[in-house]
């Protein structure tokens, strides 16, 4: 069983998995118990599994864990200690979530866009994950001020 050294939310984490092909999503969820990152489709269609890797939004449901080695992985749990990240603040202020299941992925998309220096409508267009509840209008409102 292969072992990998990962950097997740600023911490060095050693993980042992059944095979090198195990997607990062399941390493996060089932090995590290970081369940904020969600499984939605397994085929990179919905974006619920999005995390920040070296500042970029990456869908983790088909990303081999080995390809995350040597990179900085930030999940929704690591975005801030106290919901103080501007995207989290905007999400609370604009009351974006309904069921909330897609929101970690959506927030990570927005956080990456903000980090890249994007603003407002530009961020909105990058928040192209699937939300079955249909919170898109509030996502737009929330990122309008970012």
């Amino acid at each position, binding site marked *: 069983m292969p072992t990998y050294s990962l950097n997740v939310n600023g911490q060095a984490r050693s993980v042992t998995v059944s095979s090198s092909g195990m997607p990062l999503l399941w390493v996060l969820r089932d090995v590290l118990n970081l369940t904020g990152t969600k499984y939605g489709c397994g085929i990179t269609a919905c974006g619920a599994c999005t995390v920040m890797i070296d500042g970029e939004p990456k869908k983790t449901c088909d990303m081999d864990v080995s390809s995350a080695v040597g990179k900085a992985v930030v999940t929704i*749990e690591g975005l801030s200690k106290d919901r103080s990240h501007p995207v989290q603040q905007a999400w609370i202020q604009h*009351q974006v979530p309904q069921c909330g299941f897609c929101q970690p992925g959506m*927030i990570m998309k927005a956080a990456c866009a903000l980090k890249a220096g994007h603003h407002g409508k530009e961020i909105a267009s990058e928040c192209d994950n699937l939300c079955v509840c249909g919170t898109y209008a509030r996502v737009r409102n929330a990122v309008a001020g970012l």
Partner: protein
Amino acid sequence: MTATVTTASADIASPDRRRFLGTTGGLTLAFSLGAAGLAASRAEAGTASAAVNAWLSIGADESITLAVGATEMGQGSSSSLGQVLAEDLMVSWQRVNVVQGPPTLVAPAPVGAAIATVGSGVVRGNFWRLRDAAAIARETLVQAAMNRVGDADRSHYAVADGVIRHLSSGAALTYGAVAADAAFLKPPSSAPLVPDEQLRVIGQSLPRQDIPAKVDGSAVYGLDVRVPGMLFAAIRHCPTFGGTLAATPSAPAGALAVVPVSVAAGTGRGAERAGNVNAVAVVAGTTWDAMRLARGLSLQWNLPPAAASWNSAQFVADAQALMTQATPYAAGAANPPGTLYTVEASTADPATALSQPGTRIMEASYTLPYVSHACLEVLNCTVDYTPGVRCEVWAPSQTARNALAMVCGLTGLAESQVVFHTTLLGGGLGRKAEVDFIAQAVQVAMVVKRPVQLVWSREEDYTHDQYRPMAVVKVRAGLDTGNRVVGWQYRNVSPSILAQRGSVLGPKGDSQGYEASHALPYDLGARRVEWVSHPSPIPVGFWRSVGASINTFAVESMVDELARTAGLDSYEFRRARLTDPRWLAVLEAAATLGGWRSALASGRARGIAIGAAFNSVVATVVEVSGTSATSFKIQRVSLAIDCTLVVNPANVEAQLTGGVVHGINAALYGQQTFAAGVAQRRNFNTNRMIRIGAMPQVAVTIVQRNAPLDRSVPIGGVGELGVPTLAPALANAVARLTGTRVRTLPFFAA
């Protein structure tokens, strides 16, 4: 009417209550949000009786906790209930902590045999009883304060923000200070509510309690349950419904077990039969290992011989044949699928009215597909089973009480040996009102005897759903020379949700199937509304707005076709045939919001539709741009609702906007298709839904009718109401824009 306070207790006697309310000591009211009559008695302070479905606890530490049975699946009702409670308890809304209670707190709901968070019912079903209970709790606390102060004249006290003040002495007692005393008092049978003009909380757009945990990953859905030492299991079903496993495979390398799983009693719908082994679960150390090993298994199934003919086109052909060949319902007869039920019939026969010379006849068939739920959180359930002793279950369930009964039935354990946790739901939409996935997880746990989380892959979730029923609806109507509608014949052929759940249908058929097709307030002349049960092998179930999503499409499309035939404006045509003040007000509000009378940019058109469901009336105006029925964009959706009263306007707006998106997804793309019994749409790449780029402008207006608040007026639902009028308003807009009338959903079937 009073709240039904069944127990008040100082000691939190039952383990369940201790678990949910903590052990702060203080006043606990256990009350019913669903039954009448008062039975206050400390002697009953054991486990909650069947009639009790909420606990209110006011702790000596000033905590205020409301434990409810209803499920939070994104609709925000848990926050709204807390908001209602804060009003008559006279505390700030931030102090009320609403928690998920045990399944014994789930109120029986009058939907078939289900006991569930369904029917847009949580707030509207509990509003008055919760207010009464809050007022009774408040006055019990005031009584305790009066005893303490030694002045029994209630008019000498004022209550504000959780503090009881004795006006002459200035003595001030907090709820927490008197909570322990109050627990020994008999609560009054009724208590005055806050007068309408003094309402501070009800009707305010307050923040939802559940949102902070949903922005930092700490919200725990069913899939997020983690138990020390747990395993993961992935389900793999027979590709068709009604099949059985031919041979149990051995566990592949890397798997800890392969467990045959059978259809539990009471969960077999359509071709599925209780007792059939229709799935296997592969158990492994992670979800991914379980899923990949399940996918790789070579399995042999005995398929039902008829499965080869289970094709979408055949289902539609069968429905079209039944349109003319159904057998009329006969009281006392078996009335098998294929029976024609009369939902509504006027004394005058529409056939006669429509045969009058000079009548212009419009006749059309509308065809709607099976639609998947596709909640973003796939079905899952976690079970920790100790043989013969205990079973702990974590499930994203809309119907925890049914699930609890299922767990007891499968394990042979008593309710007191089962600990059932209802988690947050990553969407429910009606699918999580079923308990099939819970029964499967229990079966697996009983074999592996370790904590195990059963997960359906997205593909299993899509292909083994209990779908929104398909339907073929034929409408025949006619206009006289004065454009009066003189006759209306309406026949809906559709699989029965309730019959698949064992209900014996009465003379009108399936209430879920015919809802929103009858008692229409339009002047339609002579009318006859019929419903025919379609003998579908496909499992069908409750889906956001259920039958209203089918019938409102057919009714409002035909009304528009009549307006077109009459050469009249869609809005004016409707208005002139309505007298119901609610419908008229909502129609007018939607038209105003949607700018119905304003000039349109070139290449644009508007459509309108109106309907009613769950005691609410809703109308939608859709504005589209484009060039054809296959090339258009939804620009703007304007929706008006009369839900009779509003607790949280911002949440009403959110729910209706979400319903609009749900309606758009279903109208444009939503369908499950079948070939030789196998569901064809397996993931989000073949069953599209809109993303943010296609999100139209959505505006919502609430037609206020709640001054004064009136107990005798049934409260309207909100959660499902955005859905039914979207598809017809869109089809009507596209027809005006392009001249092409779309009568078969979805718009984009490929």
